């Protein structure tokens, strides 16, 4: 569908007579390596997003009616619309230069200047966990669509622990976070066990468990003892202050979750690269039959892997409820599980790749909020951009065809990972 949107000719053929670093670099610049594919995917998504912005704006479309008579009118209007929208996206994600200037001049506080970055990190934190959950499962050859349900269970158990126990400071937070991990792990354990014992496909079982979890949450929050006293709508009691993730406060919503995310990413990277279990995961992911022959218990690995993946997603849910929401509502987990899926694909299932992909998604989301409030363009634009980026990432051959890239070692994100 996008083949006709952009067909630039290849730019730098750069013949290489002698192999200096520079020549190798320039020669490979336009070959289809991962970095280039990722960049081009983002570019393509942004272009399609721009087209969407223009075609959905009645005022600008009206100018296209007399395009042949005065093309400059339509083009200028389109350009203004698009550039302002994307400028707002960047300002909302990384900070507004004008506010920084005001901060230096003393007319604005540093909090105001850093608020956009804080938003980015706030949105990114839970996505790191759900992304890692999906990525880790992928490495073991499992497609964990259930990150959403596991995150919901993480929210439920962490939230319940947060407003029930009333433990002293620090301890309460640790217990609540662990509770979230356990909740998610339990929800991941079920499909793992079913897969190992009966061969039930994890894609199907986790989809079913996602909706079961969502319905369970919507039932739970209106029960006596859970629902906030004096409220008739579906919202639970608030999490005790001692169980909330510490945050600078004020307009800076960023909380400890992002630091935990860094630590957990490092932990997952270690687990995959250096631990025996990580080796088993990768072996089973590469070829379950060979792994079985080599003496690895494939079933046990599946069960453990899904439990760990579930625990990670549960931690994502816990950061959501302990870091930003502070109370359970039917929509408390938002879409973090499904977004985690995209994040993992964008990060090519590598721990640090997933981490930075989550930062990018957090930035898009934070910027999307600003587009919504300043330019009046729907926040859903961000969802479209995210989905498009991942579609292109997952189909490197498509990007290659669009940009006529030369063949190089291509590692597709989605190809041959999970067998439907």
């Amino acid at each position, binding site marked *: 569908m996008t083949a006709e949107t952009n067909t630039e000719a290849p730019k730098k053929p750069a013949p290489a007579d002698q192999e200096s670093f520079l020549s190798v670099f320039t020669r490979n610049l336009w070959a289809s390596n991962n970095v280039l594919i990722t960049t081009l995917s983002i570019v393509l998504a942004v272009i399609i997003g721009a087209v969407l912005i223009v075609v959905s704006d009645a005022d600008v479309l009206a100018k296209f009616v007399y395009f042949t008579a005065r093309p400059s009118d339509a083009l200028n209007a389109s350009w203004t619309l698009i550039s302002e929208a994307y400028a707002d996206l960047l300002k909302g994600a990384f900070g507004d230069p004008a506010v920084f200037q005001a901060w230096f001049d003393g007319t604005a506080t540093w909090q105001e200047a850093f608020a956009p970055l804080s938003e980015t990190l706030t949105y990114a934190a839970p996505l790191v966990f759900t992304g890692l959950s999906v990525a880790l499962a992928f490495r073991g050859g499992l*497609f964990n669509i259930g990150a959403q349900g596991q995150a919901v269970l993480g929210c439920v158990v962490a939230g319940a622990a947060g407003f029930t126990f009333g433990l002293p400071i620090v301890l309460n937070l640790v217990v609540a976070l662990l509770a979230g991990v356990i909740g998610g792990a339990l929800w991941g354990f079920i499909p793992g066990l079913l897969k190992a014992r009966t061969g039930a496909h994890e894609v199907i*079982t986790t989809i079913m468990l996602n*909706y079961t979890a969502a319905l*369970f949450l919507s*039932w739970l929050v209106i029960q006596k003892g859970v629902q906030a006293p004096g409220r008739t709508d579906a919202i639970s009691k608030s999490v005790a202050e001692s169980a909330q993730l510490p945050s600078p406060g004020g307009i800076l919503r960023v909380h400890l979750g992002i630091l935990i995310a860094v630590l957990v990413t490092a932990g997952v990277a270690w687990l995959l690269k250096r631990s025996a279990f990580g080796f088993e995961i990768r072996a089973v992911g590469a070829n379950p039959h060979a792994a079985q022959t080599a003496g690895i218990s494939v079933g046990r690995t599946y069960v453990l892997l899904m439990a760990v993946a579930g625990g990670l997603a549960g931690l994502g849910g816990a950061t959501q409820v302990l870091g930003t929401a502070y109370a359970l509502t039917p929509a408390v987990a938002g879409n973090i599980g499904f977004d985690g899926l995209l994040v993992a694909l964008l990060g090519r299932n590598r721990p640090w790749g997933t981490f930075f992909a989550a930062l990018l998604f957090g930035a898009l989301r934070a910027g999307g909020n600003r587009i919504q409030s300043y330019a009046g363009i729907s926040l859903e634009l961000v969802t479209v951009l*995210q989905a498009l980026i991942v*579609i292109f990432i*997952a189909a490197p051959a498509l990007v290659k065809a669009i940009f006529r890239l030369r063949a190089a070692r291509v590692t597709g994100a989605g190809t041959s*990972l999970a067998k439907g």
Partner: protein
Amino acid sequence: MSTATVQEPTEVAAPEPFWSRQCRLGLALVLIGALAAAVFGALAPSEDARFTLSEDAEGAALSINGQVGAVLFGLLALAAGGAMLAGLARRRSNVLLSLGILAFVLSFLCWQVAGNFMPLVDTTEGTLQLALPLILGALAGVLGERSGVVNVAIEGQFLMGAFAGALVGTMATSVWAGLISAAVGGVIIAAILAVLSIRYLVDQTVVGMVLNLFALGITGFLYERLMQPDAQTYNTPPQMPEWRIPGLADIPVIGPVLFEANLLVWVALALVVAIHFGLSRTRWGLRTRAVGEHPTAADTVGIRVRGLRYLNVLLGGVVAGIGGAYFTLVATGSFTKNMTAGAGFIALAALIFGRYTPFGALGAALFFGFAQKLATYLSAIESPVPSQFLNMLPYLATLIAVAGLVGRVRAPAADGQPYIKS
């Protein structure tokens, strides 16, 4: 060659274990039957449960004392289970199973309805209406999966269909234009799915999930940009008319449900029959099944594997898109963001629960539709049974079915595997 020859080897291979499927099912039925008789019977008030044949409390009704009914039907379920355990009617074990489950549901209903009434026409009609998109979505799945392409993007096709139907239907002020563009909307998503998974060999489940999010995003975006500011020009689609077939529509209960209905009811039911016939009796069906089970063999005898997969996925897009039209052109008068709310996944569940067959999908969709209708009915009579748990039923039933606790569901052998011509 027919279906039977394909399935025979699996039936012959396994020797009958002591705890055969029939024994396990029988035991399960005995247990739930005893549970129903004891628990539902004890809880049910000793008042009449009335099942009226009309849309309200008036008119003729089937009436039974709630307590007696709950115990009676519970015992019936128990008896059906016992018969299965005892090995009676081995050939007809599915009949006994259905009878047992039906008796269990009736026992539950007697408890809930006691001292109240349940309008049968309204319930049946609601069941069929709620099942409609599920039937169409599951059929779309059947088309794709039987030829080896996993379609988890049914939800996305629904959303695109619903959106396109509302948009074009409103702008052209024609419900038929809306219906056609709904089909086109479904085909757009199906085409992306087909190209990426068949041509570019991307994992089909991955593409499907991403496409769901894409459809959610793009319909939500256009909804907020176009429809919300100016609902009058973009989001007031005309509704599909109800047609009444004189004579047939006067049959009690079934008449008003089946013969005084909108076109989609007939389309859905006709498609079930057509796809069943097509798959089992035509050249296209044989080829589709061959491609879904063993693409290499199919290719060797000259069947165009990829071409057939493209065709089937796109046909599935048409069917799912029409299913999406149900949401805007039949159920409600406008499009709203994420209005399908997971119906595509229930359709997927119906497809799997129905064992990848058209009639199985129909049965599963009706069952799930009934569960949903029952959930709304129970919350209307302020039953203590939470509606959320009834809404969980489709998902839990599918979970049990795939886990093989009640008969293993077997997907087509090449389902989800891209075909690379060597």
